[in-house]
């Protein structure tokens, strides 16, 4: 079967029930989607399928014949990062980075879909994404900045003046 991965046509040989996550990482050597829980609970494997965020660990590759798949590798280049990637760097929204690929992909779908800088709305959009380093405040700030279209200098880090201590799940922490 054929997949269009990061704008490159790829032929997939894995058995049809193989998860998209396994196909990306083990057959196509695209390692930004992370195998966190491999059962839908953490969000680290999230990629865009035809523009929508999808858990690659929950998706049988045979259901995607001809689909457009975008991973972090397809969002920008080191010289030309996407708006969300720039905001994550400027706002220091990654610690160990394990959740970041899924967060960036889901945030990209949120921003592309016209999402605003409203903290609750961002929390709702990223609700299925767990940051084991619990760096949620910075992540919310980065996504809000990207949603506003702030200029984000990747050579400097923003101060956290706007900290609103609201967890990504929408409650107080």
């Amino acid at each position: 079967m054929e997949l269009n991965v990061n704008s490159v046509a790829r032929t997939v040989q894995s058995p049809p029930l193989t998860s998209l996550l396994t196909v990306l990482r083990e057959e196509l050597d695209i390692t930004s989607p992370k195998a966190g829980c491999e059962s839908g609970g953490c969000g680290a494997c999230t990629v865009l399928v035809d523009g929508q965020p999808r858990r690659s660990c929950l998706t049988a590759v045979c259901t995607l014949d001809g689909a457009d798949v975008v991973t972090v590798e397809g969002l920008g280049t080191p010289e030309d990062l996407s708006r969300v990637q720039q905001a994550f760097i400027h706002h220091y929204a990654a610690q160990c980075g394990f959740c970041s690929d899924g967060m960036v992909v889901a945030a990209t779908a949120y921003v592309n879909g016209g999402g605003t800088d409203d903290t609750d709305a961002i929390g709702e959009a990223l609700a299925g994404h767990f940051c084991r380093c619990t760096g949620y405040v910075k992540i919310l700030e980065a996504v809000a900045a990207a949603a506003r279209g702030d200029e984000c200098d990747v050579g400097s880090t923003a101060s956290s003046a706007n900290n609103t201590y609201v967890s990504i799940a929408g409650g107080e922490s």
Partner: protein
Amino acid sequence: MTSTVGAAAVSMPSSEAEAVAAVTEQPYATVLAGGTLLVPQHTLGHVAVERAVWLGRAEMDGIAQSNGRVTVGAAAPLAACTRLVAPVGPCAANIGDNEVNAQATIGGNLCAPAPYGDVRGPLLALGAVLRWADPDGIHTGGVEDFVAAGGARPGRLLLDIAFAAPAAGSFVALQRHHTQALTAMTVSAVRGPGGDVAIAATGAAPDACRLTSAEAALAGGGSIADAAAAATADADPYDDALASASYRLRVLPVYVGRALEQLGG
């Protein structure tokens, strides 16, 4: 079209009739709907799948309403079911985060036993009628009949779910929205066109159940508090990772009370 690369072949029927034929022919096939449970189970080696049938092109995802009766195709995504009347709409909305909710189907949820299968509660309270196919033909029955027949298994395909639109419905869940993957308990209440109230719960017993003692207390003229207190007689509480049996027993009357308050007089 059939994708045959590698071990398990997956067929992709383009109509309900083709799906029935593909699932029920030997060797019996496992149904693949949204895949949100089946794919990880397969990846982790918890299920062996010889042959699968994917419903994504079988046109089994329609939602129709006519003459006060709602019919929902088994492959309708939960996200599409969120616009259904209470209690089933709010229940569908409560399941998973946005990404899981968009991919998982109502039929897949109904087929998934506890701690999944939240939609069984609202559908029991609504007296929903299911249609399913297996090698013996097409069957109709309630959620309890489908479960008694063994629920989901290779060779069996749930086709659709139908119910009469209720006069009123309510739904409460023991879960902070999205903060925990699974729901420890739900209570659904439905007022039928004749004014009778049906109540069902998930998480009060190992499988979804009607709370008939609470219903009887209300029908006998009892208050909401009476019905809530009576509900514990219908429980068969159990311990699991989500909640202890004693916690379930304490919370059940509170949630029955809330569901009945929400239902209103």
